[in-house]
């Protein structure tokens, strides 16, 4: 899932030239995914999903402990995160959090439907790269 997330983030950064791949504040991929998830499961549902993903990601990337999920499921305190940690730690946090969100989606609705959601969010993202990578680090 990490590789998949890396591809998505790179794709998103490559598409939006104003952002750099290593821009730690962007969290662009998540922001783009958010309205689709909110439409599907409601903001309460997104809050529950992202909170769980953040809890899982925290165990791997301690820097994410600064981040909070608000009642609507959006990420907060990203500014504090940037202030406290260097770019690479923030970028790693961003990557792992997205990977855990996708992980949870796969657990709940399966790989095929998760790929379809990703395809809806990023229709230009090459289908051959949409496939999640099974195995390896979760």
């Amino acid at each position: 899932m990490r590789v998949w997330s890396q591809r998505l983030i790179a794709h998103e950064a490559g598409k939006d030239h104003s952002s750099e791949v290593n821009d730690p504040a962007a969290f662009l991929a998540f922001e783009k995914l958010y309205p689709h998830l909110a439409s599907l499961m409601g903001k309460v549902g997104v809050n529950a999903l992202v909170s769980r993903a953040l809890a899982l990601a925290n165990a791997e990337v301690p820097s994410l402990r600064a981040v909070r999920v608000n009642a609507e499921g959006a990420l907060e305190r990203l500014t504090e995160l940037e202030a406290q940690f260097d770019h690479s730690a923030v970028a790693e946090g961003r990557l792992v959090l997205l990977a855990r969100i996708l992980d949870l989606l796969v657990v709940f609705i399966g790989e095929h439907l998760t790929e379809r959601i990703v395809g809806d969010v990023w229709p230009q993202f090459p289908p051959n790269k949409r496939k999640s990578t099974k195995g390896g680090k979760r």
Partner: protein
Amino acid sequence: MTKRNNAAKRPQIKKAASPQAKVATVTIKKIPTGVRGLDEILGGGIPEFSFNIIAGPPGCGKTTLAHQIVFANATVRKPAIYFTVLGEPAMKMLRHQQQYSFFDGSKLGKAIRFINLSDVVLGKSLDKVLEAIIQEVTTTNPGIVVVDSFRTVIRKAVADTSELEMQTFIQRLAQFLSSWEATSFLVGEYAPDEMRDNPLFTIVDGLFWLSQLTERNSVVRKLQIFKLRGQASVPGLHTFHIRGSGLQAFSRTLGLDSKKIDPLGEGRRLSIGTPELDKMMNGGIREGDSLLIAGPSGTGKSVLATQFIAAGLSKKEPAVMALFEERPLGYTDRADSLGLKLKAAQKKGLLETLYLRPLDLSVDQITQEILDAVERVGAKRLVIDSLVGFEMALAPGFREDFRESLYRMIVALTGAGVTILTTVEVEDTFTALQFSHYTVSFLTDDIIRLRYVEIDGQLRKVVVVIKMRGGNHSKDIREYVITGKGVVLIHPRRTDYHGLITGVPKRTGPRLLQEEEIAPEPKATKATKATK
């Protein structure tokens, strides 16, 4: 031309030329439900642009039915919108529904859109809910709209708004969705007594009521179309089940519209596989008839049934055996020991054996399973072995209607042109000659009775043809044995005894010279060899 002829013609011309009659008739297109059997119950499908409610208690299959309808109809050109509201979370819904074979993940997104309205319902008024629905519908232009669960929308509204506002909301929603040419479904948990006072049930065009009843240890699912504006549906309670393919409904009139056909139009006779018995039946069973073989345990009912099937297979006539007691393997093993090669026929696809013992089936389900098997193999012959096991396979609630249900099943099957042999176990009494416990003999065209009699200090077996509808038959009571070749009639009718059908006959003439039967009977010897 005479005056009389002119008078007779005039009204016809008027009727045919009436422009009003043509204009008044609007053809209502019917959309398929995707649920096998339900379109027939509905009278062809769901009327297009209708505003419907799918109601019932929790766990009865409302959401699954809604999904089946959505997946059967949604296309990219005419998509479906599935609004979820405070009921089963969308993630769980998708997780669970994709277990069904009708679920097509490729339709999600473009053909089917899931939209969560929980935030709107929780935080805002009914007007805002309607606004949100209108916005999505006008943007997407769907053919199907589902609100699941509508009950939660209303429950929230009852707390915050007046009854009038709620009625206005429902009215506006119904009018808007129909005007936008959407066929819509409100899914909700309702109890039957709510129907009286709830204006929703007055407004909707179609009311699909699902229920599940617990009867002793079994659960029976039932479906009722309380109303369906614009077309005639089949009234009454229909059973349905939920399997891997989703819902399947069974009309309570399944089979009743079948007209019995004479396959060749001349009453061809089918051999039962025992030449002497064929002779007693004036050449065999009339094709398309239903034959009942009644007798106590061990008299060879299943052996005769197997011979009947094997006789057909020898002429390349495909067959189905619906077994309710004995396991198919035991059945085919015994048949093979009698030289009746059922296994080979199974491999060739000429014979299908159904083993039905779930204990909570309805007769309609069984009928459908058998009809499907008959269609699959193109069966000409069918064995139902036995009625007692059949009754045991039914949920307790259905046993009360066993006779009526059986009647429908026989009509449906003989209507399909199949010749049926049914076995039934009856106890031998020594005062009467009963044909079955069920008083179902009126269902069958022909009846053969097997029974034990005491002759010369032995418990022997006799056979008699009781009835053959539409044909003559032998009145003889014939003795038979079960040999390595199956049921074999061994004597002409016995005239040396009186009262054979009582089971304890009296000798009236000299004892017949007969070779002593060596125990065990040849059949038993064969069977022992086969199991070794």
